[in-house]
């Protein structure tokens, strides 16, 4: 599987709300990070839109499956596009790749009194680890172009 194919597969799992399968792409020490400002140095000294280790990821996904998650009834429909993929670095000893890409994501939330529709765009920075024939995610960082804006509540991973 090429890196491009992997990223397309990952985006598809999220589009199709196959969150558990998506989470299984992460290594045990893997995490997901959406910073709250463009040059944020780390997720520990400042707050983030999302900073999930696997424990929080599991809680977030369980919540999305809960019958009383009112803000996702009906659930959002989203579509993600990943382009401009480039391998930025490789750590042969660890078997890890650093990958940069561009994403666009459209979210439509069908609700009353009117639906909410919005576009997110930014860069993904993946740290991927080779795992046999496949790849696993050690870190996925999604930096929105407007990550320091005030948002309507966010329910989905970018």
């Amino acid at each position, binding site marked *: 599987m090429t890196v491009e194919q992997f990223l397309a597969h990952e985006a598809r799992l999220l589009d199709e709300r196959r969150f558990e399968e998506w989470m299984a792409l992460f290594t045990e020490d893997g995490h997901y990070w*959406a910073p*709250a*400002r463009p040059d*944020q140095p780390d*997720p*520990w*000294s*400042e*707050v*983030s*839109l*999302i*900073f999930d280790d696997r424990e*929080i990821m599991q*809680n*977030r996904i*369980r*919540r999305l499956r*809960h*019958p*009383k*998650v*009112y*803000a996702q009834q009906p659930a959002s429909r989203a579509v993600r596009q990943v382009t401009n993929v480039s391998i930025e670095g490789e750590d042969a000893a660890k078997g890890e790749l650093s990958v940069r890409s561009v994403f666009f994501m459209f979210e439509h939330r069908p609700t*009353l*009194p009117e639906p909410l529709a919005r576009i997110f765009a930014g860069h993904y920075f993946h740290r991927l680890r080779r795992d046999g024939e496949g790849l696993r995610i050690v870190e996925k960082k999604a930096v929105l172009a407007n990550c*320091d*804006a*005030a*948002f*309507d*509540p*966010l*329910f989905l991973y970018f």
Partner: protein
Amino acid sequence: MNAPQFAHAEPDVEGLVLPDRVSRRLYLEREIFELEMKRIFGRAWLYLAHESQIPREGDYVSAWMGLQPVIVVRHKDGKVHVLHNRCAHRGVMVVTDERGNTGNTFRCGYHGWTYRTNGELLLAPMRDAYAGRYDMSDPACFGLARVPRVAAYRGFIFASGAPLDDPAIPALGDFLGEAKACIDQLVDRSPQGEVDVSGGVHKYVVRGNWKAQIENLNDNYHPPFSHACSTDEQQRQFRRRYGDEEGPHLDTREEGSKWESVASVALDWGLSYCGPLPFNQGARGGPVYEAHVAALEKRHSRERVREIMADFFHNVIVYPSVVMQLASSHVRTLRPIAPDRTEIRVYPVRLKGAPEEVNRQLVRYLNITHSAGSLIQSDDVEMFRRVQAGLASEAQEYVWFNRHMADDATLRGGGTSEVIMRNQYRSGYLRYMASR
């Protein structure tokens, strides 16, 4: 001031607030919103920023007092000024970023008018044109206008737009009253007795009226319902901190609910606090907690440290602009934008001198509970949106705040009491709205 009197009558707000309910119009109508901006947000003590956000001279942050843009800036003598973000010449907003360092002066981009960081006009280019006719050193006409009242408590900077001769507005300390004890506890958890509020900010939009947010903050009737999706089959929430064995239990029992055991305390001017939530009680532990206690014990007696680490309150609302929370150590500001739009900002309150891991955990916790993508706050924001949508119905005029009416005699109640909201209207809202 002899402003021209227009024919339209002001809305009769007092008639819309009853002892146990308020009219839907308070959430919907533009005229009422504008009056609130003038009478409440134009005069009340509003929290704007913390000293730690502007440590050096020339440091500033932008803020809002109701709809009015202001700049909170540290002058070269160390004093903090709150200046209107409006060039005296043609009305240009001088600063359009959220924070920065401006050096000694602010310069308007339009015609180059340049101001000292205390608001005085330093220069208006090609000044001969004014010579002999205008006293350009008159700050009232030609300065960045100063907000008249600025004061800080434990580093938290408040300002009020009320003129100094407005007798209705008390000094900041008197206004805060018992809420000071809550702020003290938040700050005293720092081994240096000082906090740092520069660890970034969560921002989110509420598609609802500002009052719907502030009426929720000490409402301990809603959590087991609004936040049901954060629980498992046993109504147990996920744990929020490393070291906690499990998360809180969101009890929905009809009788003997844990939520009734939470204290609600209503204070003057619409302020209030609630006691620790049932899930914060009991011993906390683990190496990070112990290291925090050890750092505090270098400064305080063991007895005092026990007091500091006990959860004395959960939320303190400094009506109408800010809430501070102990468990997740944050300050949260409300910025009304329109009757149906409010912006919320949530800043982590980091504890200076505490072990680094304490502050790291605190930041992690606040992402889980209060980011736009949080697992808790997003439930509330959805409900505020639905309040605004539902109130379009005209069949019923009122929303109700009539739980535990008997609590009004003492201004104390259990967690699900709506004495907090009734007191917001009686001792805060109506008092501001009734006087000009």
